């Protein structure tokens, strides 16, 4: 079964639980774009959503830092403030991704029991289709150096596409992350929105493969360490042209919601 949908979404927790520092109107515009993702995801009738996200040192601390990982447990659960989330994991697809990624030379770790990071459940809070479907959490290390190279992420994305295309399920792929932001650093109030805009323009022209040539240092400098999740997705999408549903730069974060035809 071919891929049935592909999106990239932001996951900044201020979209879920808004402090007074955030522009409410901007937050609501991002919610509206995520509602459009939900509408399109529902129309695509996926059997499973495979989300590619970076762990915010929630599931994986310094006791083990996998470059790539797959959640193959029965359920994936996490909490943020008053919210509690628990999603069914699509075990057959999750297991196939682990087994076939290893056959393809990628060696992802797998887990059956780590707390789910908000990078997964913030997009799902707003965009899970109705009725909900199982998920497969796919992890790309973004915050604990040394992270996988963009080239490696892109190559894994190509392998994921081959795996998904051979599956019986209707699969949606969603990358969670970005764009420019620098949480916890002296650059928090000064994201690189020029980088984001140039990136989105190139993706709209179908030039996603160029992201594989970025370096880790360039991503760090641009506040785009999380772009690795997009680059993984772009590996699965070839030369598809991005449709930018929203780009909403806040005082600290370039919120981008993007769709691709599949």
């Amino acid at each position, binding site marked *: 079964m071919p891929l049935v949908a592909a999106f990239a979404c932001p996951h900044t927790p201020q979209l*879920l*639980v808004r402090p007074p520092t955030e522009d409410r109107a901007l937050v609501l515009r991002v919610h509206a774009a995520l509602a459009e993702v939900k509408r399109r995801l529902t129309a695509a009738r996926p059997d499973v959503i495979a989300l590619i996200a970076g762990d915010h040192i929630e599931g994986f601390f310094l006791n083990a830092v996998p470059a790539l990982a797959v959640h193959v447990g029965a359920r994936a659960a996490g909490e943020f403030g008053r919210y509690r989330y628990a999603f069914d994991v699509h075990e057959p697809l999750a297991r196939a991704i682990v087994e076939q990624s290893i056959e393809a030379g990628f060696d992802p770790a797998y887990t059956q029991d780590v707390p789910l990071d908000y990078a997964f459940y913030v997009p799902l809070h707003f965009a899970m289709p109705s009725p909900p479907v199982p998920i497969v959490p796919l992890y790309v290390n973004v*915050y604990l150096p040394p992270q996988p190279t963009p080239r490696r992420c892109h190559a894994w994305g190509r392998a994921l596409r081959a795996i998904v295309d051979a599956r019986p399920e209707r699969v949606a792929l969603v990358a969670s992350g970005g764009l420019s932001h620098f949480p916890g650093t002296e650059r928090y109030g000064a994201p690189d929105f020029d980088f984001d805009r140039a990136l989105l323009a190139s993706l709209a022209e179908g030039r996603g493969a160029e992201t594989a040539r970025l370096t880790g240092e360039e991503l760090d400098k641009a506040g785009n360490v999380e772009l690795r999740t997009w680059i993984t997705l772009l590996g699965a999408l070839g030369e598809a042209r991005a449709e930018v549903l929203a780009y909403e730069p806040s005082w600290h974060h370039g919120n981008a919601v993007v769709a691709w035809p599949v």
Partner: protein
Amino acid sequence: MSDVHYFFPPAAAYPLNRFLFALKSDAAARARYVADAQATMRDYGLDEATRAALAGFDRDRLVALGAHPYLLFMAQVRLTMEREPANFEYF
């Protein structure tokens, strides 16, 4: 510490990062810290310089000590969410 914003965490900073991880991700650890900050920091094996830097959440000093910037950031967010619940809008 480094030319990059997110650097390889030095092994010497493991107790500090373990403590920040607990504040971020463990509600019980946060409650203990709010009730008795000094005792909780000692329980996590933090030395005096680290405890002093944590007293004011002095980011530059903590990062110089090897704190992961993101852990610092989200530990503070989670503490603030619990200290000032009325200031947060849940969607």
